[in-house]
């Protein structure tokens, strides 16, 4: 690959990352319910994209999503046979934060994460696009190739199911 062409290719990849990174991460997060894993998949896909031929990819966004999804699947298979890190390592707090506040926040996030994992991927998908990316129903309908009313219906149902799951783990308006 000529140097100029390689430079243009790297610039295009960077532009795609800046433009599509959040959305792709959200879609990957909807699949695995793990922030770090979704981010690793995103990074891995863009690293592989760097070594690809320029003209061999027509749709970079779709290519990155496919590669990242395959990486997530491979990771899930490896997890079944590999040692897992202890959970407490993820909950180590920084020195400048209030330990009690961080502990409470982690507790709540852990329950929300557990509830989200109980949902279907379709429900997680609309919740992540709405509340992680702040997308409107119109934009979600474009991305998911459906109508706005269908998106609103899916969102309503997903919220209802999430509330049911949150109640199971002890989070509701009557919980003490």
């Amino acid at each position, binding site marked *: 690959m000529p140097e100029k062409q390689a430079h243009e290719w790297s610039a295009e990849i960077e532009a795609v990352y800046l433009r599509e990174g*959040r959305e792709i991460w959200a879609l990957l997060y909807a699949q695995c319910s793990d922030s770090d894993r979704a981010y690793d998949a995103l990074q891995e896909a863009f690293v592989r994209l760097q070594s690809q031929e320029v003209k061999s990819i027509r749709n970079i966004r779709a290519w990155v999503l496919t590669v990242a999804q395959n990486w997530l699947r491979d990771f899930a298979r490896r997890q079944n046979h590999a040692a897992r890190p202890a959970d407490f390592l993820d909950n180590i707090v920084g020195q400048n934060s209030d330990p009690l506040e961080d502990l409470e926040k982690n507790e709540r996030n852990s329950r929300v994460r557990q509830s989200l994992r109980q949902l279907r991927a379709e429900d997680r998908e609309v919740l992540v696009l709405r509340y992680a990316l702040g997308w409107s129903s119109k*934009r979600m309908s474009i*991305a998911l190739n459906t109508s706005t009313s269908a998106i609103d219906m899916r969102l309503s149902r997903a919220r209802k199911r999430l509330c049911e799951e949150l109640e199971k783990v002890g989070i509701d308006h009557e919980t003490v």
Partner: protein
Amino acid sequence: MKPFDTSGMLENDEELESVLREYFQQEMPPELLELSDISDEEYEKRFQELPALTNGVPDTFDRKPSRQYKTGLLLLGLCACLIVGISFIQFQPADQIPVAKQPITQPESLPPTVKNEISRHSHILESESLAVVDQGDTSIEMTPQIDKSVHESIDITLYNTELGPIEQRTELSWTNISVQNPKTGTNVEMSMPELTIDFVPVNSGRLSLINDENGE
């Protein structure tokens, strides 16, 4: 045990939404949080520019009509079962009872010319021969074989009448005839009796003999 107060989170949708927004803000990597987002109009314009076949939504997020897929699969299975059933009925082995495929009709009477042609090809039998004629389409030629072994029995009885002694000679002979079918190899055997009764006046001077009538 619930060590932390989480009450009041789900009083309404707004509280739930605020919980989710805060949750995802913490979940999203800081590097991605810093990325700027585009407007809906710009996103729609860019989305339409993507190739039509791969509009950027991966397979997992592009909902497939699973119900239609299952219905099609079910119809395909039903068609396959129907084809197997029909072919089983069609190619089922015939029963032991023979079935006439053509309607049974009376044998047409052959014109005289045809009869002559048939007789031309058939063997001319002797007067003593026995012929068996098949009524079907194919004529079966029977080859008569006459067994020459003739069993004879002679019975002589004398009667004294007013006209003088009369000798009754009763001669019974059996002629065996066997007819063989060359195609099937079967033999038909039959015996034909021949009874001859003669009344011959007997001279008083001598007894009659069998061959007296021949002048011996």
